[in-house]
Every structure is written in C-alpha cells, then in structure tokens.
C-alpha cells in the first residue's frame, strides 16, 4: 500500500544568541494509511517538535510533509490533535468544546447533524452524562476523554497524539489507552503518537520508532509490534513477545539512547529487533534497517 504520510528531511533550527540550535535535523518518516506509529524517546529529544511541525503549529525550518498526496501548509482540522494537557477551553462545556471543532470541519452540515456528531463521540468516550459540564468540574482523566472525542469528531485524515496521557497517573492512563484504542479500531485512522511510556507505545502501536537523545536527535531503532487486534490489555500483557519487546525498549531508553547510529557507527543490535513483518508489507524496506535516511 502506498505511503499516506511522508515526512522528508524535516529540520527545525532555532536561532539563539549563542548561535543556531538544531533541534531536529533531516528527519524522515513514512507512514502507511491506517498505521499507528509511535515516536518514543526522552524529554528533549525533539519528538514533540516533529509532531507539532506535522500539526502545522510550528513551522519547519526545512523539509516537507505530504499528507494524503498533498503538501501540508499550516494547521487545520484535517489533523485531529490530542494535546498533552487536554487544552479544553474552560468557558465552554464538554459538548461545546467538541462542537467548536465539529462546526469548523462540518460547516455545510445542519445544526442537528453537528450536534449528533459531537454527542456521538462524547458518548463513545464515556461522557454521555457529562456533556454539559465545564472542564473545571471534570477530573483530569475525563478532560482528556473530551480531548480524544474532540480529535476524533473532526473525522480527520490523521490523528496526532502528543504524550496524550502524560499528565495522568499510570492507572488512569491504562483506562484511557483502552478508550483510545477502542475508538481507533472503528475506522483505523492513521496515527502518529509521541510518548515516553514504554507500555503505552507497545499497547497502541504497529510500529515504535526510538529516538536518540537531543539535540539533533535521530532515529535509533525501529520495532514492529504485531500483537493481534483488537487489543485487550490482559491479552497483550500475556502475549509471549510482550516482555521481550518491553525489555528492548527499556534498554534502548536506558542504555542506547545516547548512541548515534549515523555517527558512532554502532550497529543496531540485530537480534533485538523482531523480524516479524507480514509478507509483502514492508517489502521495500529490509527489516532492522532504519527506514529513514540518516544524514546528519
């Protein structure tokens, strides 16, 4: 299948009094339609910068992004964003917050239809009763549910998730990951997520991309995650591969995230990367070779 999101030589440089500071340099990524891809790395590795450039909220210094065959310029509701802090407008109710986006994306639809869309997504994330509450009356977890509903209600071309559950405690995080994956399953939106949570990455993604430490972060290793879908927490945790993948990710973050594959010539540990590609799926890309050209 062809590539749906193409990120080409994406670069972000901030000018500082001490000279230019290179946050991201020549970042390349291709995502297929319906694929759920996660960027994992320590804070400061530039993963969120990549995401905000795809979102159009942060202009790229160089490079291009093509979504569904069209070059992206600026932000827009064709990308549904779930922010780390849910970013709800406190003067609107949960429903009005969702409606704000729906009214934009579906401006030709009737009022009733727009209301139905917003109500539908709020109910599906479990907030049917809380639609008329203001964010201040909702718990942190419930606010993030509204954030998820708002992103999906746009019927966007793709989803962008920026550490979506980073502000929640680990158990609420588990709950919301299930809410997210259940909703995602309905129409398998192409998704790009940024996180530093190993379990979150494994539970949700098809592919996990490990980023080395910034500045000038690059792609370190790539993991294919092939747990069967639909995914249920208990089954995923009991999958024979789960803890092996978890160990690989943890050891990357703890030990190898300082290495630079492109410069230090430290070969990627072949046996740490599972070769479980479905036939024909990644024919154009031999496993364990980073899919991105690393040219820094």
């Amino acid at each position: 299948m062809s590539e749906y999101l193409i990120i080409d030589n994406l670069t972000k440089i901030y000018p500082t009094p001490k000279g230019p500071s290179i946050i991201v340099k020549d970042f390349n990524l291709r995502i297929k339609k319906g694929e759920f891809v996660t960027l994992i790395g320590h804070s400061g590795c530039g993963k969120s910068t990549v995401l905000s450039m795809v979102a159009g909220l942060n202009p790229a210094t160089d490079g291009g992004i093509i979504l569904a065959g069209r070059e992206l310029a600026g932000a827009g509701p064709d990308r549904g964003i779930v922010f780390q802090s849910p970013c709800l407008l406190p003067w609107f109710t949960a429903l009005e917050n969702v409606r704000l986006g729906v009214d934009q994306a579906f401006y030709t639809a009737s009022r009733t239809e727009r209301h139905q869309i917003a109500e539908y997504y709020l109910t599906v994330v479990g907030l049917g009763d809380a639609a008329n509450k203001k964010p201040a009356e909702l718990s942190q977890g419930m606010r993030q549910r509204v954030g998820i509903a708002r992103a999906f209600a746009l019927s966007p071309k793709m989803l962008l998730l920026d550490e979506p559950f980073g502000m929640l405690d680990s158990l609420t995080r588990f709950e919301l990951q299930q809410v997210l994956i259940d909703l995602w399953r309905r129409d398998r939106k192409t998704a790009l997520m940024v996180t530093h949570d190993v379990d979150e990455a494994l539970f949700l993604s098809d592919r996990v991309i490990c980023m080395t430490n910034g500045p000038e972060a690059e792609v370190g290793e790539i993991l294919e995650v092939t747990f069967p879908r639909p995914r249920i927490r208990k089954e995923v945790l009991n999958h024979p591969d789960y803890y092996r993948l978890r160990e690989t990710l943890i050891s990357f973050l703890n030990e190898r995230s300082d290495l630079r594959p492109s410069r230090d010539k430290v070969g990627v540990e072949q046996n740490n990367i599972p070769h479980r590609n479905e036939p024909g799926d990644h024919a154009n890309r031999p496993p364990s070779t980073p899919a991105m050209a690393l040219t820094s």
Partner: protein
Amino acid sequence: MPFLELKEVTKGFGANGSRTEVLRNINLQIEEGEFVAIVGYSGAGKTTLINMISGLASPDSGQVSLGGKPITGPAKDRGIVFQNYSLLPWLTVSENILLAVDQVFPDWPPEKKSHHVASHVAKVNLSHARDKRPAELSGGMRQRVSVARALAMDPQVLLLDEPLSALDALTRATLQDEISRIWQDNRKTVVLITNDPDEGIYLADRIIPLSAGPGATLGPSIPVDLHRPRDRKTLNQLTRFKEIRSQVIDYLLASAPKRTEVQKTLILPDIEPEDLSIPKPLMGGRKQPIRRGDIRRESVEI
C-alpha cells in the same frame, strides 16, 4: 507481633447523610525492616491511608499501632516525604535538613549536627549543592533533599507519599535507583504510596493494590520475591516479574468502577468533513455536506 499494624480501619468524610466512605476495613501488617508498596488510583484514598499512619488523621473506627502502641498523633518516629517536597524556600539544602535535625536531636552538639546533616546530604548525592536554595534546584534534586531530611530524622518508619509522581520519567528512574540503594544500606521500615505498579514492584518487598474508591480496600498482599539489586531491563525476562505485574494490574483494573451497561442508540451522520485548506466560497458554494452513505445508527454501551 507486627511492627506497624492497621486493624479494621475505616475512614470517611462529610457529615451524616452526605458522608462518603473513603477507606473500608483496611487490615495491614508490616514487619520491621520491610519495604511495602501500596498501589492505587489517584483519589482512591492512598493519602488518607498514609495520613492515618503518620498521625495527621485518625480513623473513624479500627486501630493503627506502631510497635504495639496505638498512634495518636504525628511523632518523630515516622518521617514523611511528600509529593510536593515541602522545603522552606529561604533556607539552603543543609539548613532545611538542619532544621529537622534540631527538632529531633536538640541536645546534640553543633559539630555532631552538622556532621549528621553533611552525611545525609552526601547520601543523596547532593554534596555539591548543599548551599543552594530550593529555587535553584530541579524537581528531582528537591525531592532528594526531602528524602535526606526524612532520613536525617532517623525515624523508625519512613512514609513515602507518591514522592516521585511529579517528576519526569528519566528523573523518576534515577531517584528510584537511589531510594533502592539507600534502603538496601539501612533497611528501614518503608511504606511507599504510588500510582505506578512498576515503581512498587521495582522497589518493594511486598506490593498491595488498593481498590478504586469510594470505600477502597486493600487487595491481596503480593510478595515481590525478586532478587536484589534489581535491574529494570532484565526484570522483563523473569516469569515471576510478569506474574506479579499482571496480578497487580489485573486486580486494579478489575476494581475500577464498572460502567453501567446502558444500551443507547446514537445517530452518527455519515458525512465528510469540508476541506478548510481551500477558502470557503462566499457564494454559490455547496450548501450540503458530501454524504458517504446513509445515517449510521449505532448502539453503544456507556
């Protein structure tokens, strides 16, 4: 006889009528020198539980006792580390710790006190920052001061109330390593409250899940019989680690309030969003959205 014991403890808030029970029938026995982790959802009553051990709150019914004697109020034999550090901003690292030492050991000569402070600052690897004020320290460093202060008071029990929740993942891991190292050096009795099952398993001898509130109660006590020192990475290879982890997580997820299964029919118009990258036509534009199909009616459980 257990060192620290909670017997049939129940605690609630609010007056009659609107009263909500936070903790119900809590039974907990901790031996001297044991590291016990209690894992639960935020808002489930974990802090209430630790407040009753520290003496800041008293149970509505039941009994909390330490060394066979009932706990009636806060005392120096229990040191607490809070999530928000609670350091005095106008004092340096050493002065913050000295303040606590002065309280507990007022009769010590000044040299002994300052030596005691210095050794505890060294224990948390902060000797280079001993003359800095909290505002000049990162969150992780502040929490180290807080840990050093609690240890310097030489309590019989160390109570850790979500000490690392406010820190980022990397700092959290470093501090977990340090807490683990310090504990292995002095083997004090520790009660750790956390919302992170992995943190509990990594640090404790025994992990006990606290069910979701209201009326939270302790689940099965699961011994973490994993060899120390533990390694976050290689733990993943141990069958026992996987067992403990899934036992804790399963219990907690199962204790979450059940969603009431109400079937509700919702309508989702099956229409396509407009492309906002082309400017809205002022006149003569399409007045209707593009329909992919008929309206979908879906039944969902809420």
